[in-house]
């Protein structure tokens, strides 16, 4: 299978080399059409993107830009079609393994040349790894965000609790919360990926970043004792009754009211959960954030920080303009602007940008830049190959409901691993 991919990749590389010189002669001013496909369908990110594209168009007035915003979920299946037929010039997607199928099928353009520009090379150093496959870069990041535990500060104060730093403190806190008639964590596992977040953190804290990545690469069996230790730690929380009941019935949004109503004290989530929690009426006095506590003191702390990206499809018509657009997106000033609290409310990818003054962004930025020495993972369904991720997250959901089934679940995951890699 691999060799066939390689062969087709090589064929495609020759094809692009042949077409290269033809498009390379009109360097000076950008003109023609630039077709951009976006998956930022929520109102706020959509406005941000449209504004950003308008600013790019002001710099290149001869360029006729056509923007197409597609529903975020629908985009995930449509990308397969539009990359193979009628490709746009620029498209959004996700980093790491999530882009691998398209890279291996030769559908994304190699943009390593952008990273030769010192401004980009230094600015985007932190996300370069996530966009590298086979030693080449296949796109640029435009935003990323931290994961961690968002909690109700007022409930913690009421019970006299402090942010836990170790697993023992975490469990002690949780017991106190349970004793007060609340649940420790809200979660909605209907769409599975939320359980992937819990696995990521428990495994990163139990076995460390390198082990986690080896597992993602299929080098370690799921039946390994170290993996079982991760689940044993998870089980401690499940047996305490730490998670809300019936979480398999809820999406992540449907699990928010438990925290808003004070029936659950905390939520392991990405920073995008802050906006709906604030909209639901929680103030910054009631809401706070802490880094997932240490479980095994011998492993360095590592975090999940999913990165959203822009790519140039291999079949794009106007690659010069697309490259200029990617450069513009990643530039320090633009990064500062689009990631501020009025826009995406996330972290800029360019090291020369500044982070907006927001309680959660500041904490997240500090955590990722100073206290994540083990490494930065993308997220379970972006680090693991699609098939493994799907089977894995389904197993996690089952484990959270029926922890006694663990051995059966791990055997099943092991069978999937043997087939996938």
């Amino acid at each position, binding site marked *: 299978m691999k060799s066939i991919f390689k062969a087709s990749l090589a064929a495609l590389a020759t094809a692009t080399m042949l077409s290269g010189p033809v498009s390379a002669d009109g360097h000076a001013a950008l003109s023609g059409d630039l077709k951009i496909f976006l998956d930022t369908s929520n109102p706020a990110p959509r406005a941000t993107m449209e504004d950003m594209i308008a600013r790019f168009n002001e710099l290149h007035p001869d360029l006729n830009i056509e923007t197409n915003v597609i529903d975020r979920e629908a985009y*995930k299946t449509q990308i397969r079609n539009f990359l193979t037929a009628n490709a746009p010039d620029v498209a959004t997607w996700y980093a790491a393994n999530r882009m691998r199928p398209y890279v291996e099928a030769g559908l994304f353009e190699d943009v390593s040349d952008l990273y030769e520009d010192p401004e980009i090379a230094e600015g985007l150093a932190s996300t370069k790894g996530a966009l590298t496959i086979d030693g080449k870069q296949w796109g640029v990041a435009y935003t990323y965000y931290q994961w961690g535990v968002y909690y109700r500060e007022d409930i913690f104060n009421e019970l006299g609790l402090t942010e836990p730093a170790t697993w023992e403190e975490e469990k002690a806190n949780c017991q106190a919360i349970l004793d007060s008639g609340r649940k420790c964590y809200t979660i909605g596992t209907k769409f599975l990926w939320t359980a992937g977040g819990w696995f990521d953190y428990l495994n990163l804290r139990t076995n460390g970043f390198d082990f986690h990545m080896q597992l993602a690469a299929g080098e370690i069996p799921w039946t390994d004792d170290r993996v079982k230790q991760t689940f044993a730690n998870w089980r401690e929380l499940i047996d305490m009754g730490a998670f809300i009941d019936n979480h398999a019935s809820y999406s992540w949004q449907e699990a928010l009211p438990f925290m808003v109503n004070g029936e659950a004290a905390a939520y392991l989530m990405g920073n995008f959960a802050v906006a709906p929690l604030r909209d639901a009426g929680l103030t910054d006095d009631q809401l706070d954030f802490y880094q997932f506590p240490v479980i095994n003191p011998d492993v360095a702390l590592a975090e999940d920080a999913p990165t959203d990206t822009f790519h140039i499809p291999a079949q794009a018509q106007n690659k010069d303009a697309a490259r200029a657009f990617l450069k513009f997106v990643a530039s320090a000033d633009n990064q500062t602007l689009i990631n501020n609290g009025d826009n995406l409310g996330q972290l800029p990818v360019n090291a020369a940008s500044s982070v907006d003054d927001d309680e959660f962004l500041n904490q997240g930025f500090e955590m990722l830049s100073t206290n994540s020495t083990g490494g930065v993972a993308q997220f379970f369904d972006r680090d693991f190959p699609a098939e493994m991720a799907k089977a894995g997250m389904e197993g996690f959901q089952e484990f959270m409901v029926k922890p006694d089934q663990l051995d059966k679940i791990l055997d099943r995951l092991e069978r999937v691993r043997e087939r996938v890699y």
Partner: protein
Amino acid sequence: MADAALPLAQGAQPPRGWWKRNQQTLAPWLFLAPGAAFFLLYVIFPIFQSFQVSFYEWDGLGEAEYVGLRNYDELWYDDAFYTSLKNNVIWLVLYLAAIPAGLFIALFLNQKVFAIRLYKSLFFFPFVISQVVVALVFSWFYDPTFGLFNEFIGLFGLGPIAVLGDERYVTVGIIMAGLWPQTAYCMILYLTGLNAVDPEQIEAGRLDGAKGWRMLWYVVLPQLKPATFIAFVVTIIGALRSFDLISVMTNGGPFGESRVLAFYMFEVALSEYGFRMGYGAAIAVILFMIMMIYIAFFLWKMYRDEREG
């Protein structure tokens, strides 16, 4: 082009023969041609294509690799496949409850009282609204914390049940949601059927002393046979394409326990994490075989009825 067409048109003029002679036999085929062509292109051809794809390992993007029967071999050992198959059977059996339920509502509504049309349209209402809306309404109805269903069973002291989060109840829960519109559909079929019931036969039956169940079974039901047949067909088809309800209500969960074959196929081949066209095609082939049993049965029955008629 124009030069070539000219002599041909002149030459075709004098012998006003072939087209005129065969017009009667050709016309129906010409009218059928567009429909038949699209049916071939979009139904028959993809069926054979599915058979072909099921022998390959293909992610939809790269090269397809011929693997022979490996996809089927894997299906044989796939727990998720058996879960889906089992759920399909449950769907087929329980969904048939829509037929008697529709019949009794139709009998109940087949009377002349004030504003009966309003009642009829209220009963028919669930069939008019989209399946997605039905699914949403029922997922709120079943919600373990806020839902009406748990309020209701709470009256009898029964604990909250997360119908859609519990692998024991989830399939039945979704089928119940599906029965709501399906019953309405069967009801409307029977209501029209009841209009055609011969009053003289009812009268004759009554003179012979038939009433209640015996009247229904021996006099009314045989006359409703065409309606029953159609109700049976649409219900079976409805059960086999039970995709939208599952997708909206549970997305196949919890841990894949509410999947049916159609949903599993979608998940494996076309969903967010699905990249296995060959495996999906293999599931589609199995589903097609199951449907063929029904299709063959109906074709045979229709053929038999035609000959009798």
